[in-house]
């Protein structure tokens, strides 16, 4: 009996959270656009959310590509199929690892920072003070951060895939001696513009919305205390990661199934 009560209560709580988060996002994004005010804010947030995440994305991408090259080579060489290394590296990065790993790293690097920043703004009454100055904190604080996340993550995922493929090339061709021409031409023969690159891009757009949204909502509703903010930051990373992995399965099933 209590088991069912628990399930019911949790479901209601989740639904309530999703509803409240939707209302928040709606109020933040819908309304009279004010490009003159929004643009400088957006640039600033692109810097915080995008530029500052770039280094970790590039380095992780390079290493993951190199590992893929090495692992792929040792497996493929047994079948004498090391020329298939190119497509293997490119397809795993473009379809899966690029969008997914970028989203996970983004949640840890930028998402947690967004949550903590907004939570602290709430704790130090900066949000209340905006409201009292007749400035809507949803439009002023939440909206530019949302757009910055929405724009940055797909771009970061593109960089991740590109650098990863280059990493695979370094290991496969430069180090292990797979034929240079075969590496690229076999890759080009099996990577499709729409099927692989575009679908990967769509995936990262979806992840961008979900991760940024969770981070902003968790920050905006964080309890204004140190344990509250720390819990909200943890929840951002955990919920974003789970949402990204779950959605990835659904999207993969729809796109490539």
């Amino acid at each position, binding site marked *: 009996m209590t088991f069912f009560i628990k399930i019911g209560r949790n479901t209601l709580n989740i639904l309530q959270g999703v509803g409240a988060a939707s209302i928040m996002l709606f109020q933040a994004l819908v309304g009279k656009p004010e490009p003159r005010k929004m643009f400088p804010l957006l640039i600033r947030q692109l810097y915080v959310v995008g530029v500052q995440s770039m280094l970790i994305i590039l380095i992780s991408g390079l290493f993951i590509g190199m590992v893929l090259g090495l692992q792929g080579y040792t497996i493929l060489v047994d079948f004498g199929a090391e020329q298939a290394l190119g497509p293997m590296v490119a397809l795993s990065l473009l379809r899966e690892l690029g969008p997914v790993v970028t989203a996970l790293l983004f949640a840890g690097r930028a998402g947690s920072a967004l949550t903590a920043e907004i939570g602290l703004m709430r704790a130090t009454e900066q949000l209340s003070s905006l409201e009292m*100055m007749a400035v809507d904190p949803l439009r002023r604080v939440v909206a530019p951060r949302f757009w910055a996340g929405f724009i940055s993550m797909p771009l970061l995922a593109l960089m991740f895939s590109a650098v990863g493929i280059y990493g695979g090339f370094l290991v496969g061709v430069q180090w292990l001696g797979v034929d240079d021409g075969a590496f690229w031409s076999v890759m080009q023969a099996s990577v499709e513009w729409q099927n692989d690159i575009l679908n990967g891009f769509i995936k990262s757009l979806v992840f961008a919305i979900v991760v940024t949204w969770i981070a902003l909502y968790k920050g905006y509703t964080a309890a204004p205390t140190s344990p509250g903010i720390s819990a909200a930051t943890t929840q951002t990373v955990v919920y974003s990661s789970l949402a990204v992995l779950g959605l990835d399965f659904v999207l993969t099933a729809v796109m490539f199934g």
Partner: protein
Amino acid sequence: MDNLVEVKDIYFKRGDTLIYEDVSVQVPRGKVTAIMGPSGCGKTTLLRLIGGQLKPQKGSIRFADYEITELGRNQLFEARKRMSMLFQSGALFSDITVFENVAFPLREHTNLPENIIATVVKMKLEAVGLRGAGKLFPQELSGGMARRAALARSIALDPELIMYDEPFAGQDPISMGMLVKLIRSLNSTLGLTSIVVSHDIHEVMSIADHVVILANKTVVGQGTPEELKRDGNDLVQQFLRGEADGPVPFHYAASEYESDLLAGGQKK
């Protein structure tokens, strides 16, 4: 008397906790009104209700020509342009300088050219004695200076009403003295109406024209400082004299002391 803010018979519950029952407060125009009371009695909540950040379950709150409890989001923002609030922490934006903090409301709500904004900001900073600190970031200011900078920001748009939330809390005697002087002088020179929430009795009694004492979810005393000193209510007298025991008990409600000790190791 002409009242800028009139709070009438409000009833406010947060979650399951009843905070106000039938509270009515008048804030006369052009005067300094102090709201006092023991910690946790919801003084700050009253300010948030007047600012429209919270809504009471019952009752009415009038500010100028607005009925705050019935306003939609946009009208509420219109009303808030005519009032201002100084938060306990100052709530300066930590990523921009003091100058930009004071300029913020001007840039948001006016289309003034940059040189006029600069002039206004310098005037406001001069009024709080911080004209030399415009280039500093909030974290480089002392607590008292941060509060004065926040004060400059809250008077940037020349509001009619300014609400101070615990302006003296955690200040050393010198900055406390400065703030007391500022509140009084801003009130008379700019012709604003002030509401000061505090429990620093002496400072408040020295500047307030009208005092409201909140306790036990309602107003226990209201009037000029002189009237209150003669008030017959025990609670008012305990509060004004700062006595340790009285209608507000020293001990938090607990079981019988002796039996609690005799119970030994068992925690209760």
